[in-house]
Each structure stands twice: as structure tokens, then as C-alpha cells.
């Protein structure tokens, strides 16, 4: 995936490119959200769109998430293909009804006679001391509730392909991008997320996990930022003579359980890395998905490296103490050996 020649893009630019390419060919697409016009999105993912497509199709909104996400549902049902932005996923609490009870369910409630082809893109993640209302992931919250696809890219190549796929999907897709991967320097970006991105439009299949590193001793499953932690940990483990396989979930809904199970069947060990709160979330689901399927393959109890069940603290030392990192993954491996 890491072609070093050619065309390295940040996730922000990859997202904007995907959106721009669809805007060019599909008149039904438009973009709506706070500060996505002149500012180009707080995270840069709509940069340049206003200039090319104008204010009718690139709409700054009032701070009225319930109204504009609800409006996107109505526009989608009326045949358009809105891409809306919820600036921080932390803000979902003011508008979740429009999301989980309407966007996600109207296809079902209408027996499929209404379609809701829209993309809800939203930023996740912490690590830069933005405090407990601006640093969350809440992956588990979105993935738990039926009716919406949920994807989370870990690099620019996937970011573009997933965005194109999301915009072309006839069902609502929640597109969760991690601030620390955006390629915005002011967010202390992870360089591994900035990769080669083909210029032409392409779509990834939604619902497929990726084995991003082959290994034989342990399977490390993660998404978004966690994939980069996992890759770093895998390198460190390799120095210890341990071969870690790394799986990038890419999509939480649908969840590609087969890929995870096949990997754990091979390695016999599972570590889940999740920046979201530990309990009742992604880490539990991955572990359950493996163990309910077959416990005989497991050589050790699965482990999780997740955010503890506390609000996200502001102070850097506290936040870093809570966040997953490569060291914690390596330690989880060590813990498995001890057990």
C-alpha cells in the first residue's frame, strides 16, 4: 500500500478529491455542514470545493445538527446524495435521533421504498489534548445501532476509495476519520496515513477488512489510528522474534468477521486495539466474534488495549496514559505469554 513514488496525499486531500470527483459527475451530490465552505472544513477535507462548486452545492450551515442532518435525510429521500459533516463525532448527542432513528431506519421502516443514500462524515479521536468533549471515537456507539454502514479509514488510499464507495452507496454510510491521521500538521499527524493515492476515481468495497501485515504468532485487530499503533508494535515484536499479523477492520458495519476468524485460527492469539472506550464496544465485539465461533484455536485469552472507561482527560500526561500505543500492545503480548 505504501508506494513511495508518485502521489502521496493526506487523508484530508484524499477525501476532498473523492468528493470533488463525485460532485463533478453526479449532480445529485452536495455537501453540507459547519465551516465546510470558505474554511474548507476544520480538518481540511472539503478544501477547494466551494471554489469549484459554489455555495449552492457546498453549504455552510448554522450550528443546527439536528436540522441539517435531518434535512440531508429528506434530501436523500428526495433523490439527492448529500454528504454531511458532523464536525466532531463528540457532538452526536445533539443530533443522534436524526442519525440513528431516521437516517439509519427509514430504509427499513419504508420496506425499502425510500432510500437514504447519504454520507455522514465525522472526525474522531484524541491525543492532542482537546478535552473530553472533543477527543472521543464512540465507534462502538455508531456500530451498535442497526441500519447504517460504518467505515473508518487508516490511510489516504482507503480514505479516497471508501469515500467514493460511500457516496455511491444507496444506504447511509457513517464515515469516521481520525483527526490524528488527517495530515493536518496542527493535529500532529501520523505520517503513515499519507500514502500514494491514484488520481482517478475508485471505490473500495465496504465491509472488507484488510490484512495489512502477515504474521503467525498473534493477530492484532484495529482500525483508524490503532492500525498505526499496531504496525509499530508489530515491528517491535518482530525484533523480539514474534510475528504479528495486523488486521485493519476498515469497516465496522458490515463487520468482516471471516477475515478476523481466519487470522486468529492461524495465529491462535488475539489483541484488539481500540481508541474507543473499552466496555460494551468494538473490543468486546471482536473478541466475542472470535470466541463464539471457535475457542479451540485460541492459545491464550484474548487481550484488549482500549481507552479505559473514563471520560477523556485534558492534561497531556493523563490523556497519554489512557490512550492505546505501541508499547501497550507489546505489553499485551508479554502478558499473554505470562498467562
Amino acid at each position, binding site marked *: 500500500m505504501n508506494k513511495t513514488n508518485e502521489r502521496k496525499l493526506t487523508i484530508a486531500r484524499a477525501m476532498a478529491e473523492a468528493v470533488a470527483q463525485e460532485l463533478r459527475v453526479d449532480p445529485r451530490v452536495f455537501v453540507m455542514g459547519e465551516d465546510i465552505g470558505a474554511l474548507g472544513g476544520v480538518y481540511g477535507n472539503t478544501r477547494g470545493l466551494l471554489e469549484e462548486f459554489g455555495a*449552492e452545492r457546498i453549504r455552510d450551515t448554522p450550528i443546527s445538527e439536528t436540522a441539517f442532518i435531518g434535512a440531508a435525510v*429528506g434530501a436523500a429521500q428526495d433523490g439527492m446524495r448529500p454528504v454531511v459533516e458532523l464536525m466532531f463525532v463528540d457532538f452526536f448527542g445533539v443530533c443522534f435521533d*436524526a442519525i440513528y432513528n431516521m437516517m439509519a431506519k*427509514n430504509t427499513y421502516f419504508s420496506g*425499502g421504498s425510500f432510500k437514504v443514500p447519504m454520507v455522514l462524515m465525522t472526525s474522531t479521536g484524541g491525543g492532542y489534548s482537546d478535552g473530553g468533549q472533543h477527543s472521543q471515537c464512540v465507534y462502538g456507539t455508531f456500530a451498535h445501532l442497526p*441500519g447504517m454502514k460504518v467505515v473508518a479509514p487508516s490511510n489516504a488510499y482507503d480514505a479516497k476509495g471508501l469515500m467514493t464507495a460511500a457516496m455511491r452507496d444507496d444506504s447511509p454510510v457513517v464515515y469516521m476519520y481520525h483527526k490524528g491521521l488527517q495530515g493536518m500538521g496542527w493535529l500532529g499527524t501520523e505520517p503513515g496515513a499519507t500514502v500514494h493515492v491514484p488520481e482517478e476515481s475508485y471505490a473500495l468495497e465496504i465491509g472488507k477488512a484488510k490484512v495489512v501485515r502477515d504474521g503467525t504468532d498473534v493477530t492484532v485487530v484495529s482500525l483508524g489510528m490503532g492500525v498505526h499503533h499496531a504496525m509499530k508494535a508489530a515491528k517491535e515484536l518482530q525484533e523480539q522474534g514474534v510475528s504479528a499479523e495486523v488486521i485493519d477492520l476498515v469497516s465496522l458495519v458490515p463487520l468482516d468477521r471471516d477475515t478476523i476468524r481466519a487470522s486468529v485460527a492461524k495465529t491462535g492469539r488475539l489483541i484488539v486495539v481500540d481508541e474507543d472506550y473499552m466496555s460494551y464496544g468494538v473490543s468486546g465485539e471482536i473478541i466475542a466474534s472470535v470466541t463464539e465461533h471457535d475457542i479451540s484455536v485460541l492459545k491464550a485469552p484474548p487481550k484488549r488495549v482500549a481507552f479505559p472507561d473514563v471520560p477523556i482527560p485534558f492534561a497531556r500526561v493523563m490523556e497519554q496514559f489512557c490512550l492505546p500505543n505501541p508499547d501497550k500492545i507489546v505489553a499485551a503480548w508479554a502478558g499473554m505469554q505470562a498467562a
Partner: protein
Amino acid sequence: MTPSRDQLHWMYRNMVTSRRLEEAIAKIYLEGKTPVFNMANGPIPGEMHLSDGQEPVAVGVCAHLTAEDVVTATHRPHHQAIAKGVDLDRMVAEIFGKATGPSGGRGGHMHIFDPAVNFACSGIIAQGMGPAVGAALSRKVQGKPGVAVAFVGEGAVNQGGWHEAMNLAALWKLPFICVIEDNAWGISVAKAAATSVPRNDVRAAAYGIPGHHVEDNDPYAIFEVAGEAVARARAGEGPTLIEVETYRLAGHFMGDAEAYRPEGEKDGLFAKDPIPKMRWRMLTDGTATETELDAIEVESAERVDAAIKFARESADPAPEDALTSVFAA
């Protein structure tokens, strides 16, 4: 703007059809629920919110709409669905939870959808505001004709989503109308115990748009202000807010004992039942004859009976179809 003779007959027909349907449902709903009233039982399980008394709002507004216009309704949607032209057979089948319903039984009476006439509803208070505004936006952006109307109860006006959507519609000058059916109650809570102003039309000032108030559930007056609002919307002049004083002749839902109502209130409302009132007015001013109205009443009752027969005779959905239609096909 006064309704033509044809429009009046159309309005009366839809009011009567709606009332007949609610009466029929009220009866069927109790099947299987005696002696013990358990919502889970009978041919129509679950909550049931009837619209008896509120028909004038639906017909007064929808008289100005075509199939291409958009309506979002609430948990109390039957009168509006009928006035908007939702297919009655299939709608009733959905209320019964049958495979022939437009949602194949997945939705039920609070989730009636009909793309042919751009009708949708939902069970969360004020939830229809956003989608109606979005449909209005869709038409404006695409240069396509059509206005969008969100019907809400007076209780919904105190919900945050209502405010956000009003501001958005006004800001973007969308072809949108919010029609408030003020039936004086939100379940057991009186309007005065929930709303800090006596009349919600004054809230139009908060968005810089026209606000209208219609007294006494008058279908003629509703027709008039709705006509203005629709014309305004079609002319690209932006949204309008209309509050109509209407009456809830039924309980909040089936099974509601309504002990919270002041004594005598219901009697007073029944005395003002809009259907006999409109009948009387048409006969008096000569816009309809007894024969015509009798025919409308008979036809409406037959139409309802046929729909109920269709629903009753329709098959239940296959249980495992519960797992389908989560995502678009």
C-alpha cells in the same frame, strides 16, 4: 382564497374517509383486547393514535398539494396520509402489519411511507421537520417544483429540532410550510403547561417569516391560509408557519382514559365536531346537496371497508423477512 365546489367536496370526502377509517380502526383495535386490554393482542397491536377531529387541518392544507409535493406527518398520521393520497388499501395493510403494506409490516401505523405521493411519517416528536426542510432544499437546489409541508402537534413546537429546522428553512428561503395542529394537548400535558406563549404563530417572528393562526378548526380558514402559504412557497418567497386550533376527539392513544381532561371538555369538543359542521355549512350555503353528501359518505365508508377487507385478507409477512430491507437493495 375560497375553496371551489369541487375542492369542498374533495375536502369533505377526505374528512369523512379519515373519520370512517379511525372509527373502524378503533373497533378492530379492541378485537382480541377484551376482557384484558393488552396492546400486544388483536389484529392491530401496538400503540394507536387516532386523528378524529383533526381532519380539517389535513384537508385544508392538502387541498393545495399535488402528489409531487412532500408531506411529513407524525405519530398521528392517518388523516394526513389520506388527504395526501396515500394508497388506502396498502396503508391499512401496514397498520395491520401485513405483507401487503408499503413497508411489508416493518413500519406500522407510525411509519407509513408512500413514495408515489411523497409521504412519510415518524414516531419521534418533531422528527419530520428536518426531512421536510431537506426535501424543500432538494427541490430548490435542483430547480424542481414542489413544496414540503411538515405537520406537527403543538407539543412538538417546544422540541429543539423544530426550532433548528424553522431557522434553516427561513435562512435558505425554502418552499417549506410548518403546520401545527394545536389540539391543546400533548398526551396529558395541556398546551399552557408546556408552551410559554399562548399561540405558536408568534414564533414565526423568531425566523422573520409570516405566521398565521386559525381558530376553531375551521376547514375554510385553513384552506385559505394554507393556500397563501403554498402560493408563497411556490413563488420562491420562503416558508410560512401556520398554527391551527383543532380538536382531539379521541384519547391520545387507544386506551387513554383521559382523566386529565377538565370535566366537560370532551362534550364541548364533540358539539363542535367539524364534520357535521362542514356538512351543515355546505348545505346551508348551497355548495353541496344532501344527495351529494350522502353519496360521499356512502362511498367513503365503502372505500374504508374495502381497505379493511384488503388488509384483513392479506397475508402476514414471513417472519424471517424481518431481516431484510435494512439496507437498500
